[in-house]
């Protein structure tokens, strides 16, 4: 296998990695806000349940959660799983897990906003909804960018866990492993080069994530 073939294959995998990455980001960022509302709800039973879920999601391995989502419908409800389910399960598992992390980040962000902001808004006659949308949310977004960036960087690397669900088409990590393993059998790469190349791709992806988030942070640096 030539170097070029290897790169072509890995790039196809990278496409899948990116699809997983963007789907998870697009769904989990907003879902995290909803979970955060539940966690902050004044209705105690709700906030308590959400809290328990968040703790479980953060306190158990993501890989285990992915398998639970994957096999849950079969073992719990006796449903027959069609081949596309693997991918759906992967996205659902990731989105649920990352929503829990984002929810806690948002919560810390909201809690760090001085109570005076709420009081000033209230005295000026803002409704609770207006206060949140116009005063709290924009300031929260600014405050959560650094921890959110960390989480997104972790997500880039975590997409490799698609490996355990063997989703098709395979993403980059799965392919890198396959090509390397095949090398031992006398075909494929005959070296660890695929792993190295995949590593470089992950690294570059995260460099792009950091750079983008850094830009966003700068954009919001016009106030303190």
């Amino acid at each position, binding site marked *: 296998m030539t170097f070029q073939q290897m790169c072509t294959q890995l790039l196809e995998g990278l496409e899948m990695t990116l699809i997983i990455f963007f789907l998870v980001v697009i769904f989990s960022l907003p879902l995290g806000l909803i979970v955060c509302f539940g966690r902050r709800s004044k209705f105690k039973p709700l906030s308590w349940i959400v809290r328990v879920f968040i703790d479980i999601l953060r306190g158990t391995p993501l890989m285990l959660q992915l398998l639970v989502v994957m096999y849950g419908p079969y073992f719990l409800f006796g449903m027959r799983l069609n081949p596309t389910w693997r991918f759906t399960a992967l996205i659902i598992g990731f989105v649920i897990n990352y929503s829990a992390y984002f929810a806690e980040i948002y919560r810390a962000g909201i809690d760090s906003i*001085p109570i*005076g*902001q709420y009081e*000033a*808004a209230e005295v000026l*006659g803002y409704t609770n909804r207006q206060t949140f949308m116009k005063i709290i949310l924009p*300031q929260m977004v600014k405050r959560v960018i650094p921890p959110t960036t960390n989480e997104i960087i972790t997500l880039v690397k975590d997409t490799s866990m698609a490996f355990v669900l063997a989703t098709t088409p395979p993403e980059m990590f799965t392919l890198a492993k396959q090509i390397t393993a095949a090398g031992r059998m006398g075909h494929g790469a005959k070296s660890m080069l695929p792993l190295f190349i995949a590593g470089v791709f992950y690294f570059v992806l995260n460099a792009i994530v950091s750079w983008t988030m850094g830009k966003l942070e700068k954009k919001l640096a016009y106030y*303190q």
Partner: protein
Amino acid sequence: MILQMNNIKKSFGDLTVLQDISMQVNEGEVISIIGPSGSGKSTFLRCATFLETIDSGEINYMGTKAAWTGADGKAEYLHKNELRKVKSWYGLVFQQFNLFPHYTVLKNLMDAPIHIQKREKKEVEEEARALLKRMGLEDKADAYPCQLSGGQQQRVAIARALAMNPEVLFFDEPTSALDPELTGEVLKVIKALAEDKMTMVIVTHEMSFARAVSDRVIFMDGGVIVEQGDPEKVFGNPSEERTKQFLRNYNR
């Protein structure tokens, strides 16, 4: 009469902070509230501005009963929607300014009049710029709060409150968070407002300012009004021992 508060009681748990306080604010009047720290001055202002709910008593704005003691002895409030109208009659200036940091100075002034009071943007902007001019901040319209000194921020906060055209303006120690050299500029604009007959209730530790600017001074201690009256009388010749003692400590 703008505000009438009768027999206000307020506790935090076991701690009674306001015991049976009554106060009336008339149009054009400037009232200073003085008293030792922890005497309930802030709590009183926060009750008057509905940031705290009273336990019992009556709050009456512009002849509208906003809160009263119900049959069970507990305070009841007007429904949220009606209370909204009452809330448009007063403004509050905080010790910590509490400007919106992500808005420019001008937007801090304009956002509520436009989106809460649903007023015409053009008219609001004209008024806001005029207010900034009055505060000596006409060149700061496009600045963000973090680019201003504390004294400038507090003047913006005063302008923001005034932009709502309130009937009465409350101040909770407006200069306490400021460096000493910056208090003057804030006191100056408050004084100018007093000369323009703006109705104001000012909690302050600036005794000479209170003496100069107020029509009436209230001395609060331990959750009660110990003494009130003409500033010359309260400061010059207080009748209560506690007032004398407080002022003595202050003048040292």
